[in-house]
């Protein structure tokens, strides 16, 4: 393709934008010590929330509203993708992504792997307050089980209906937990509606594991829903 003005103008623009970025880059010096917010989190997280993983504590409690918004983003996307594709069902034809042959091996493999993957996903989101990982990562892992099933043509086992039920119930419970925080603890999404427990154990950090589990379920359901919608065949929905 020849080099046209259509390409030259963006190039010039981006070079100018690049100069803006360069100014940011050149003016940037890493902090020597933690700033105000970060040092508060470093020193207060354990006392406030009982979570080992500070990032998790921030996500689930301090910036819980963001996270609620974030799962809502996925919820919205799932709903809209469903809307978009519900009204344009694929023409009749073979289902499946068409990339992998869904042979006997894959089907059997899937049957064996799916429970393991689901378990692993649950492990990741239940340990979010202790180790790296959490609802989003766990949810993605859960969804990958769904992905496998889709690839192996056995998606029928998980109906759209069930996915949507899980998604909605998890979301509703999440919101209610937040409200309970307002009623029984210090504010919306306060995790101390449950005892903080002993630091470092799985049943600690108050409601964090519970909330992260809900997020995990919800995110997993939402990812699955998006995946199935995008992959959808004429007989789903």
């Amino acid at each position: 393709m020849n080099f046209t003005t259509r390409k030259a103008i963006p190039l010039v623009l981006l070079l100018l934008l690049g100069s803006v970025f360069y100014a940011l880059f050149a003016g940037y010096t890493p902090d020597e010590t933690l700033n105000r917010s970060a040092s508060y989190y470093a020193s207060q997280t354990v006392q406030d929330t009982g979570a080992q993983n500070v990032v998790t504590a921030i996500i689930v409690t301090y910036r819980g509203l963001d996270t609620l918004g974030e799962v809502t983003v996925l919820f919205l996307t799932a709903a809209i993708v469903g809307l978009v594709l519900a009204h344009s069902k694929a023409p009749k034809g073979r289902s499946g992504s068409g990339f992998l042959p869904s042979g006997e091996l894959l089907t059997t493999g899937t049957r064996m792997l799916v429970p393991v993957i689901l378990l692993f996903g649950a492990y990741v989101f239940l340990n979010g307050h202790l180790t790296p990982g959490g609802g989003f990562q766990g949810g993605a892992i859960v969804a990958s089980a769904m992905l496998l099933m889709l690839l192996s043509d056995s998606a029928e086992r998980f109906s759209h209906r069930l996915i949507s039920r899980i998604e909605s119930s998890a979301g509703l419970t999440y919101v209610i937990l937040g409200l309970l925080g307002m009623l029984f603890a210090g504010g919306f999404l306060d995790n101390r509606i449950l005892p903080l427990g002993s630091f470092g154990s799985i049943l600690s950090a108050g409601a964090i594991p519970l909330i992260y589990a809900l997020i995990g379920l919800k995110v997993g359901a939402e990812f699955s829903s998006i995946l199935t919608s995008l992959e959808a065949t004429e007989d789903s929905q």
Partner: protein
Amino acid sequence: MTLLTFMAALLAVASLGAAVIALVTRSTVVAVLSAGLVSLFASVMFLLLAAPDVAMTEAAIGSGLTTFLFFFVLGRIRREGTK
């Protein structure tokens, strides 16, 4: 130059290279795969930057799920486009 810096430089080159490939290639499939690769390199970089949570998420979502989303849509469009 510490090992960390060296690795970072290597990752930077790799991810930028993958990005360039994603832009110049004629094949959409290659582009999608390269973009996934960019994401993957970035997630390793996150590990270097002491952000394991982000690394996990980027790997699972950015390079994993996103790539599959692309392939699903690509597959649908291919199937219908050839008819």
